[in-house]
């Protein structure tokens, strides 16, 4: 705990949260009426997202400029760190829900549909002939025959990409602390480039799955868990790579010092989190 100060720091009020609220309102109304079949909803949603992006630029910009003016005490820095830690914990729990679904489907619902445990008659009367296998699109063959993506192809390349990016960001971090700006610039740039390549490979894999393998979101429980887990992960990689890019721009502007670089560390934590989730994905979705 940082209690060294005589005075507490309290930030002045801000209009950015209410801007974000308006953005969320438009986004949620837009996407809802779009899903209900009304085309203009799509544009309302985009407008809402636009307002949210505007809010983020403004809010983060505000915080960065206050930090650059040296307004923040050590205690504020600790608050930011703890806030980021608990935010990442909430993200972990979000992914845990989907990993839980995968576990439940593979160890419970699929074997039960195949007649295991006390479900002999479920299998015999409701889904005769269904055998418990993985991957599967269920007893009704949802979405038709499909193939899954072998673990040793593109996913292995992606694993190598992401694991290397975790190494490069650590090198960049050490360079930042040691004050080696050249190394910092280069390795941070390398990190987000690896991130964007990952997204490209993932996109290619999706196209391949939809076009050649008939593996879609509608391919039963396998397609559902596959695309939801990798999709939400891909979304997080995208967000992380954008954050890395912005942090890189801030490095170029000389925002960070060896002792004051919470923004960098927050993004690095987030990037490691995304990396760990990927390792889980690689093992449980692609490999096993």
């Amino acid at each position, binding site marked *: *705990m*940082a*209690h060294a100060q*005589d*005075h*507490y*720091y*309290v930030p*002045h*009020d*801000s*209009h*950015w*949260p*209410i801007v974000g609220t308006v953005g*969320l*309102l438009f986004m*949620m*109304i837009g*996407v*809802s009426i779009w*899903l*209900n079949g009304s085309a203009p909803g799509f544009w309302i949603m985009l407008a809402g997202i636009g307002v949210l992006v505007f809010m983020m630029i*403004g*809010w983060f910009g505000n915080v960065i400029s*206050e930090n650059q*003016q040296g307004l923040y005490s050590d*205690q504020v820095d*600790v*608050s930011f760190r*703890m*806030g980021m830690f*608990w*935010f990442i914990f*909430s993200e972990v*729990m*979000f992914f*845990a829900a*989907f990993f*839980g679904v995968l576990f*439940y*489907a593979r160890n*419970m619902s699929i074997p039960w549909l195949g007649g295991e*445990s*006390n479900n002999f008659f479920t299998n015999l009367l*409701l889904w005769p002939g269904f055998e418990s296998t993985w991957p*599967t*699109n*269920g007893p*009704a063959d*949802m979405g038709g025959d499909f193939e899954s993506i072998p673990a040793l192809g593109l996913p292995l390349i992606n694993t190598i990409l992401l694991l290397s990016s975790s190494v490069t960001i650590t090198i960049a971090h050490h360079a930042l602390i040691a004050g080696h700006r050249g190394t910092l610039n280069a390795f941070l740039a390398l990190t987000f480039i690896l991130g964007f390549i990952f997204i490209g490979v993932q996109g290619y894999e999706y196209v391949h799955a939809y076009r050649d393998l008939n593996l*879609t*979101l*509608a391919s*039963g*429980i*396998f*397609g*559902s868990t596959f695309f*939801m887990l990798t999709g939400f992960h891909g979304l997080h990689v995208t967000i992380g790579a954008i954050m890395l890019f912005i942090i890189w721009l801030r490095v170029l502007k000389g925002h960070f010092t060896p002792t004051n670089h919470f923004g960098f560390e927050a993004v690095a934590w987030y990037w490691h989190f995304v990396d760990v989730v990927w390792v889980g994905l690689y093992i449980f979705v692609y490999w096993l």
Partner: protein
Amino acid sequence: MTTAVAGGHEAHDDHGPAKGLKRWLYATNHKDIGTMYLIFSLLMFFVGGAMALVVRSELMQPGLQFVHPEFFNQMTTMHALIMVFGAVMPAFVGLANWMIPMMIGAPDMALPRMNNWSFWILPVAFGLLLSTLFMPGGAPAGGWTMYPPLILQTGDAFPFLIFSVHLMGLSSIMGAINVIVTILNMRAPGMTLLKMPMFVWTWLITAYLLIAVMPVLAGAVTMLLTDQFFGTSFFLAAGGGDPVLFQHIFWFFGHPEVYIMILPAFGVVSEIIPTFSRKPLFGYDSMVYAASSIAFLSFIVWAHHMFTVGMPLSGQLFFMFATMLIAVPTGVKVFNWIATMWRGAMTFETPMLFALAFVFLFTIGGFSGLMLAIAPADVQYHDTYFVVAHFHYVLVPGSIFAIMAAGYYWLPKWTGNMYNETLGKWHFWLSTIFVNLTFFPMHFLGLAGMPRRIPDYGTQFADFNFWASIGAMGFGFSQILFVIVVWQCVRGGEKATDKVWERPIGLEWTLPSPAPYHSFTTPPNLEAKEAKA
């Protein structure tokens, strides 16, 4: 950036509230945001209460009288969603905002701007949810638990329901992060973890639970959304999924959620009983450990909500015994409250009356919970009015009474004026009599086999239902007294002293009444205070 950044500490020390609407829209002050939370929650309490009265009016007599069964189901669903996410949770967040910085010697919450955002998302979320009442197909009617496949039959309201739940989750997670960071990082020097007031402790644990389970709920409703619109098969057996899976995920969220709604209530009661018994809280450390144990156990009991889904016997046994285990730490708490009062110099002002009623009536709800935990017995009780009686006992004379108690207890500190004790006592006695009249007969209805969420029933249930409906009307209209008391107290009245009560414990009583805009601008020195005392 349009506003100038206020430089230096002097500017911060002086700045009072902004003028007009900006004070509320741009608010970063924990008291302003806490007030908005409390007012919002009171508003939702009446909206959700009005829906409950529609339900009770229909159920007053057998047969269909007032509303269409479809609309009846919309009312039960919306009543639950609004009361859980709109009334009880925001009320406790409001109390946390007001009290935690004052109790730990901080100037404000740790992340004041995020605090603003987590509040203002709520009106948007409930605006979306309430707007579904006017949509084709009406509001969601599949129950607040949103079980598929039934909930997938919702009309245009469906995506609005999902996204409003997302927004409520977003708000709760941000609020919880703020509470945890405030408690861990903003305590005055000398306030070690085991010197924190119980309300702060229970909120620390609650916030942890919120961050752990709200994302899981978000995941669950996201899967409902993709099952509905994007062809996934998470809850569809034909595709290899399982509708029961939703129940598992939902209750993995849902069971910690019930402790999210009761742990801060435990905290409030643990503040009030010592004050009016004029004795320190009995067994403080054991209270902390009990609350932590309850939080831990809440993660491994979820399937007791699903004993009738046909889960394997080993699962039923595990969840039955784990659930019963919760009675141990809860019992520790109840006995500690009683031991606190033992040989205390007790007085019975309104907050104490509500706290005492809480201890007694919450325990009734706890016992009926134990009955429900018994898997073979639950097969009978499941989805009957016994369940309705159980959770209303822990939520209404439980959580809501604790919120009322907290309101009366801290109103003088907030407003600087004493509330009207006579009206407060009237409010208490009317609430207590009517709440029991409403919910106690439901135990008998449930044991006799009356199912919940049904607008009509057999004539053998008529008498108890009649009395329950009378009780509900009485309880509902008694709450208007609370609004009158609060309004009078805000407007004026006898000036409150800084300590307000005779022998209260805690830093909040060292501040003037009403509390200054920024609670502590410099950290209070606890060691010096203790030395003086």
